[in-house]
């Protein structure tokens, strides 16, 4: 066991893994493409968690909005990176984010209308009770 451990430490030191790990960490804790995209991934994952784990339709819709926001962040980050590297079409990322805002507004309007209608007819917003299409 000790031999295995020292072998692993040797391999890590000779390939510079620890150094690279520290570099990755510093990069993640400053403002650049990597950190912005990582934040976007984290927010998207939290939104997906909300959609999968919650049973309240309203909170599920909120989580969907959160996921859309994370995607907007990714679009804007990559557009900015494109412009930083000398590209000329970096604005397209922002324009797509604008489209996402519009579509999110439409989605919220229709989704909430469905929730209100369902609640009026059945008196619940819990997905465990929304089973009229089952079987």
């Amino acid at each position, binding site marked *: 066991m000790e031999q295995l451990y020292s072998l692993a430490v040797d391999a890590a030191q000779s390939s510079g893994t620890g150094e690279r790990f520290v570099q990755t960490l510093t990069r993640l804790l400053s403002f650049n493409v990597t950190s912005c995209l990582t934040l976007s991934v984290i*927010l998207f994952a939290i939104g997906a968690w909300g959609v999968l784990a919650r049973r309240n339709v309203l909170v599920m819709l909120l989580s969907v*909005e959160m996921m859309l926001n994370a995607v907007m962040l990714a679009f804007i980050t990559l557009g900015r990176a494109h412009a930083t590297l000398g590209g000329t*079409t970096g604005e397209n990322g922002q324009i797509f984010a604008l489209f996402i805002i519009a579509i999110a507004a439409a989605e919220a309007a229709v989704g909430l209308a469905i929730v209100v209608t369902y609640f009026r007819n059945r008196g619940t917003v819990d997905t465990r009770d929304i089973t009229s299409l089952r079987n």
Partner: protein
Amino acid sequence: MAWADVVFLLCAAVMVLSACAIVTRKNPVYSVICMLPFMLGMSLLFALLQAPFLAAMQLMVYGGAILVVFLFVIMLINLRPEELKDDFDIFGYFVPVLGVAILAGLVAACGMLDTNKGSRLDKGFASEVDGKFGSIADLSGPLFKTWVVPFELVSVLIVVAILGAVVLAKKKA
């Protein structure tokens, strides 16, 4: 540490914490209220990424319109506290652990397989693009030339969505 790093880290912390709060609060009113710091942080981040128009849109459309509509619906539905059942199962608490593990694995893998050391993007992207980037004048060119058809389709989509919402929510006579 540059000031942009500090602002970014603050925004990221606020957004991740409020996102977790949105998912874990039992009462949907608290979830919607936690959405507000999330939107503020996102808007600040857009401003930091040189997208001032998007930052304003984010505040107006999300913070101003969508959140208010959510609050209205929650008040219309008016769930009493005793109707709020426990909303999480074991699965719901297990998933974030798995997610954090996967993220840590990805970060470690990226650190080990890193090949583009010293890229310009690594040093952050503050003040490397001319000030015109992301302004309304800069956005409107491609929006009304390259993307004019999607733009018009979005307006059709919004009209359809409004009509659909009205038809759905109208009380049957």
